[in-house]
């Protein structure tokens, strides 16, 4: 069994496409219309074009809002992405106006930070344990 796709709910797919590609630097893999206005929209890391896809899924279901509001209230991230250098990535994203709810924090071998993806989620970035 392999994990080839995971998803985050996003308030607005167009806004999410912009944030996840232009700001975070992922590349779009699939963009297929589904139904009247929704899209099957996935992105991948440019480092791993055949790697795990992230589905930017419409947040239309009524259960999504209370679920995400409760998690965001407590600062809990919904996904984690690996970066080589959390502090450098934090600097880069801050320069692009990204709001962090947790500044880079060194905890033993791992450094993490948490930011708002502007689409309703908090996202954690972390260094890969060596």
């Amino acid at each position, binding site marked *: 069994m392999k994990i080839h796709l995971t998803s985050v709910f996003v308030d607005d797919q167009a806004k999410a496409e912009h944030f996840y590609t232009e700001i975070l630097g992922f590349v779009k893999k699939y963009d297929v219309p589904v139904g009247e206005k929704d899209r099957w929209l996935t992105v991948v890391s440019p480092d791993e074009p055949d790697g795990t896809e992230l589905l930017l899924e419409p947040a239309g279901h009524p259960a999504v809002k209370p679920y995400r509001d409760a998690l965001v209230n407590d600062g809990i991230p919904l996904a984690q992405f690996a970066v080589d250098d959390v502090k450098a990535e934090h600097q880069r994203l801050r320069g692009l106006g990204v709001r962090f709810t947790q500044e880079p924090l060194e905890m033993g071998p*791992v450094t993490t930070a948490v930011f708002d993806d502007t689409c309703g989620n908090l996202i954690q970035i972390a260094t890969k344990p060596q």
Partner: protein
Amino acid sequence: MADDLFKALADPTRRTILDELTEKSGQTLFEICARLSMKHQLGISRQAVSQHLAVLEAAGLVETRREGRYKFHDLNTAPLRQIAERWLVPDTSGSKENTA
């Protein structure tokens, strides 16, 4: 109020939370939990951390601040003055700055 303060300070986990907020004020519940588990190896549930924070908040040592959809916890050391003022005799031999 004094009882709340002493009760809040009586627990080692709550003192550790205050240590971490001293290092950086303005933390989400998630960050406080991460610091307790990763830095201090405390196996403690999020619900238990929430309860500790509620005790600290009742004592006035922690204040919560809402910014948009997020909630941050700030340190407020002002109530600790009550302890100093209750027993410590002002040092009259020192300079005026020390008695402030």
